[in-house]
């Protein structure tokens, strides 16, 4: 029980990922598939950010000059910034993937006048 409660963010990431995965596989509508893909990617962001999270830690900045009281110089005192930075890059990638996919959906809709996969497959046969 403690295993589940204390690491709840990781459990949520797995659940989110599986919801996204289900939507990609199970849904026939292309937009729903795309939303599933986005949930899948967002789950990854949650995972990376939770790996960096720390209770009671501060930002990784050493403050100099007047009035500087605290120096977060030990690894336990500050939050690891790298996963956040990685996720900034990954978010950019995900947004552009989403944009390309939406453009493709517009192209598909103009061609077939529908976004249901089974109707498109029927139309192409």
């Amino acid at each position, binding site marked *: 029980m403690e295993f589940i409660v204390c690491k709840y963010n990781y459990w949520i990431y797995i659940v989110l990922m599986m919801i996204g995965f289900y939507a990609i596989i199970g849904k026939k509508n292309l937009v729903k598939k795309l939303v599933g893909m986005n949930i899948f990617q967002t789950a990854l962001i949650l*995972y990376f950010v939770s790996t960096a999270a720390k209770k009671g830690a501060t930002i990784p900045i050493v403050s100099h000059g007047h009035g500087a009281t605290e120096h977060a110089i030990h690894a336990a005192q500050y939050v690891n910034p790298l996963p956040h930075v990685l996720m900034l890059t990954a978010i950019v990638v995900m947004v552009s993937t989403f944009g*390309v996919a939406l453009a493709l959906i517009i192209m598909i809709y103009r*061609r077939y006048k529908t976004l249901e996969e089974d109707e498109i497959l029927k139309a192409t046969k």
Partner: protein
Amino acid sequence: MTSSPFPILIVIVPLISAFFIPIIGWWKRNLCYPLVILSLFFCTLFSILTLNAVIQNGTIHYYLGGWHPPWGIEYVVDHLNAFVLAIISFTSFFVAIYSKKSVEQELPDKIVFFYAVYLLLVTGLLGIIATGDMFNLYVFLEIASLAAYALIAIGEDGAPLASFRYVIMGTIGACFYLLGVGYLYIVTGSLNMADLSELLPKLYHSKVVLVAFTFFMVGIALKMALFPLHTWLLDAYTYAPSTVSALIAPTMTKVGAYVMIRVMFTVFKPDFSISLFPITSILGWLAVAAILFGSIMALAQSDLKRMLCFVIVAEIGYIAIGVGIANRMALIGAILHIVNDVFMMACLFLVVGAIVYKTGTRNIYQLRYLHRKLPLTMAIFVIGALSVVGIPPLCGFFSKWYLILGAFEAGKWVFVAVLLVSSLLNAILFFRVIENIYLEPREPSYAHDGGGPEAISIDEAPLSMLIPMFVIGAGIILLGVFSGKIIDVVIQHTIPPTI
């Protein structure tokens, strides 16, 4: 250990040119093509210089922004990626030369953006190969994939749907890869490949590392279209414009195979990826399925391009089987096959592009007497086809030879049998096409309109298409003739010493 700016130049030159192309194209459309040629020419030149430097002095490092690893991003070029870099940039250079007429015919109003995205794709591919950082590899993987989605989508009728499926599958693959990076990061705190390979051996029995490795393998298998995960490839490569197929089909999947070898034998050491984890036997059996499935399904196709797509599935199987057998001979075969396959597939897809350019059809049964119309193109097709079948002086023979030797050495007789059977299947496959093109039908068909074959005059593809095809065709022969030297100088240094 030397430092040199070439690794970054190889990636930066096409990237910067990709940004200049829309600007220059807005001013003068005709300047796009020379700019692409120029930038890819420098790219090829730099990668050949790099290969030369690596052969002379060993691994080259470049630290981005002067930050030393493991803090900064590092570009590492050793024997393996120097060779793959040279081959990929060489191929994309010649495909770019070839693209002029084909793009003018198929996509007349999209030339500017086509070339911009083309260069971004090349940037992504070369970046994947040159980088020594796990996360940087993910970014380049997505740059290459995004460019590929866009390029595929401008193809013929079914292309947008095929491209959409590729987006979904490709994104799942990339996400799995990223998840693998994340799992490795939480146990080691590093993203640098060389650093990881030193930190990981102590953690080989950790479950997190096992999960990370599994995620890597599934993600990369999706990207390289290994058998059960190949479904996106067939439609995407069939419906793409001919030039795009000729660029993506040889390079994308092979770069995926390169990443697999890099992760298995550089980031993880062979004593993990071969001894501790049954990945090699899984890969081997998947490869067997891929080879048989690809070769047999290819027999059923009447569309020449779709047939070649199934051949790619089988060829990926060859690389995977080499990694799956995992002894010295088989790995030499697998790495040699990555290089050979880039040339063979480029050759065949370029020829298909030329056929489409001249006749407008890809149906095998409508290509009769094509050798009278396009004698040189068809001669190059025969070279490529014979190389895929594995006829001795051509390069395809040597990689298969090493794979079979490796399978013998490991005593895996099923793999030997599959490799031999697939050669026979490939022979049937390509001789069926060659027969349809070259040979007279046994019974003269009177229904044929337009008279006999003598009425067809030579109407060869334009020179800008012929020269790249000729160069790639000559490359197939040269790679075959000098394969012993290539193995001595380059490939034997790429095999991990413990194997």
